[in-house]
């Protein structure tokens, strides 16, 4: 019977993949699959063989492990545990809004362009580096759009084809996200509870793999942009750029331009609190840029408004993020059944995992089964329960399709979809550039993963 339940669970997994690829609501999709994966494994305990039940204590219920406690763990403790991640997301979004409101982000971009001038490749390379730096701290669709409305018209005015401009901008945003503390906390929660494995910090992760992943993504995006630029013809366009934030030329003081990286540096260097870093750098930005010159009440309103705008920026993620931990938790109940079906098929060695994931990178597109912000959470649930890998290794294996492929290269990413509409680039023209970028960068990142995170000691495994 366990085989039949395992097969039904497997079919539902592919059903979820199809559901995500079709672009349906992720929150509802994950709620439904959580429900199904609760009913089938628990109901299945009434029919499975005794030997199967005996070898899987997670499916045995009694005084110490009551059914109600198991259900509470899935539907109460798991989403509650995600609360700590959510707080980081909200503060990160506030900080992003502060950088936009004070003009620090836009000044950084303009000053960078003034270094590069009319040489498209030099300007693209410099802008890629600065964009990546900015997005090590900023997060969410709002900040990407706010920076995009500055960067994209500049690149297009330099005669850079719009599809190249869009792909290189989105690629460098994704590069920065590799060491973004908010994203790190968010994805870490897929693998660990906040208090588990305290040594797996952003500092450790950045030093052992994060910087390499960022640099690979940045270099490949820039090199490919240079290759495309060499082949592309210069374009002069007459377009009316209507009034928006892009036309406001508000320059922030020079010494404030370092503030965007302060929270990340504090976190990596001193393992200082991420939220503390956002608060310090955010208020410094507001004071140094003269945004706190009003009365106490006005200043409070400003801080409040920025917080509100920031939370709105992250709102589309919130529903999904709060459903996901239920699914992560229920995957443990389903794992014994998956083990029966896939136990002999799933890769167990790190080199095989890296090769298989590198080959299947395209399945991180369209919210497919490789991306954590799609139905990759299900793949993680299956993989981590049928084989044993160190947490940092597994993190990197899933971060690549999530960040390089989904966030940086996929048209289902909210800000990529915005960019396509804004710059009037056809989806297929964007994908023609972004998919090679995802593959080149992704394969090199898997090589780095195997070299840098392969064969870690027992301390990095979950007991």
């Amino acid at each position, binding site marked *: 019977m366990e085989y039949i339940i395992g097969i039904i669970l497997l079919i539902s997994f592919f059903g979820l993949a199809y559901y995500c690829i079709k672009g349906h609501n992720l929150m509802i999709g994950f709620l439904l699959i959580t429900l199904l994966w609760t009913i089938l494994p628990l109901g299945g305990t009434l029919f499975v063989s005794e030997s199967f039940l005996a070898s899987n204590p997670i499916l045995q219920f009694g005084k110490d492990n009551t059914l109600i406690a198991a259900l509470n763990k899935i539907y109460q403790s798991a989403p509650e545990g995600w609360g700590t991640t959510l707080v980081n997301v909200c503060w990160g979004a506030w900080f992003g809004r502060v950088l936009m409101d004070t003009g620090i982000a836009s000044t950084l971009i303009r000053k960078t362009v*003034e270094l590069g001038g009319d040489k498209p490749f030099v300007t693209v390379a410099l802008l890629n580096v600065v964009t990546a730096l900015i997005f090590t701290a900023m997060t969410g669709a709002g900040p990407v759009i706010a920076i995009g409305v500055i960067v994209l*018209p500049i690149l297009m005015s330099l005669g850079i084809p719009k599809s190249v401009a869009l792909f290189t901008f989105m690629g460098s945003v994704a590069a920065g996200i590799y060491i973004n503390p908010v994203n790190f906390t968010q994805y870490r929660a897929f693998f660990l509870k906040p208090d588990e494995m305290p040594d797996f910090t952003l500092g450790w992760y950045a030093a052992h793999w994060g910087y390499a992943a960022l640099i690979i993504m940045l270099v490949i995006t820039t090199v490919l942009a240079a290759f495309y630029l060499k082949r592309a013809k210069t374009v002069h366009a007459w377009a009316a750029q*209507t009034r928006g934030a892009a036309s406001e030329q508000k320059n922030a003081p020079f010494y404030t331009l370092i503030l965007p990286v302060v929270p990340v540096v504090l976190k990596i260097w001193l393992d200082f609190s991420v939220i503390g870093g956002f608060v310090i750098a955010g208020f410094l930005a507001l004071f140094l840029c003269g945004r706190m010159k009003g009365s106490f009440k006005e200043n409070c309103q400003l801080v409040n408004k920025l917080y509100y705008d920031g939370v709105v920026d992250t709102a589309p993620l919130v529903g999904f993020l709060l459903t996901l931990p239920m699914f992560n938790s229920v995957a443990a109940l389903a794992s014994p059944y998956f083990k029966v079906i896939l136990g002999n098929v799933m890769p167990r060695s790190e080199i095989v995992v890296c090769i298989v994931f590198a080959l299947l990178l395209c399945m991180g597109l369209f919210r497919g089964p490789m991306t954590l912000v799609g139905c990759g959470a299900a793949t993680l649930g299956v993989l981590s329960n049928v084989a044993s890998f160190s947490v940092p290794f597994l993190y990197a294996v899933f971060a690549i399709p999530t960040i390089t492929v989904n966030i940086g290269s996929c048209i289902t990413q909210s800000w990529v979809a915005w960019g396509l509409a804004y710059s009037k680039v056809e989806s297929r023209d964007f994908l023609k550039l972004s998919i090679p970028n995802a593959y080149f960068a992704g394969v090199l990142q898997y090589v780095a993963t195997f070299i840098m995170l392969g064969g870690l000691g027992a301390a990095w495994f979950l007991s």
Partner: protein
Amino acid sequence: MTKEEFREALKPIGAGLLGRPSQQRYERPHFPIRPIGDMLSDLAEIEPWEWYGYAFSREPLNGKFHDDQRREWMEKSLACGKEYAGIVCREYGTQDPEELAKAMGMNVSYPEFPEKTDRVLFAEFRVPDKICIYMDAVNKAARLFLKPEVTQVLTEGLDVSRLLLAHELFHFVEERYKHEIFTKTEKIRLWSLGFIHNDSNVIAFSEIAAMGFAQEIMKIGYSPYLMDVFLVYGYSPEEASGLYEEMMQAAKRVPRPASQESSVGEETTV
């Protein structure tokens, strides 16, 4: 905060909690709508050299310049465009942009391409010889020619697609004369470190000269920059009004106030 405002404020959070991704989190500023005739008539009064504030506002290196430089370069670039219009017209013996394009061996296409209001693309020149005139903007604006106050300013029978073509032809001419033309030879020093330095062209020079070129070929008295408002109006009278305000302020003039009555009337006619 009223009950309605409170409800509106909560909407995006509610949408987020329901997992409905919202792609446009960016609220654009709002502007009072003015009649197109009034705006065009105000803008037509701005002398071509007075457009430097607006012309440089889209220049990536604008932060490095001061107003005296902008004004000087505006005059030189306009003169450059007009000079090369004369050279080309004499060479090919015609002032018709379509005939010029044909004689120059240009590959001109007129695609219909739906546009959004935040960036309306009118025309493109792709090196070495491809020009696209995006007809969606032109066709939308064609309806505005039914208004007498519009034809009065823009001159009756103005062919907007030819004006756009004339502008793009300049970029071809510029490529051909790139070793001698002002827009390509005039450079500014961005930075220097000992022997190492970075000199750069200014993209605004090309665009300004292309406007001067088009103005000369089409024999119009106003600056073609005015087309930004005219062509955007077909998509959004409000955005066009915002551009009008920006242009008037850049030319150090006061935008005319919008009357409530005219706003409503204009919006319903487009």
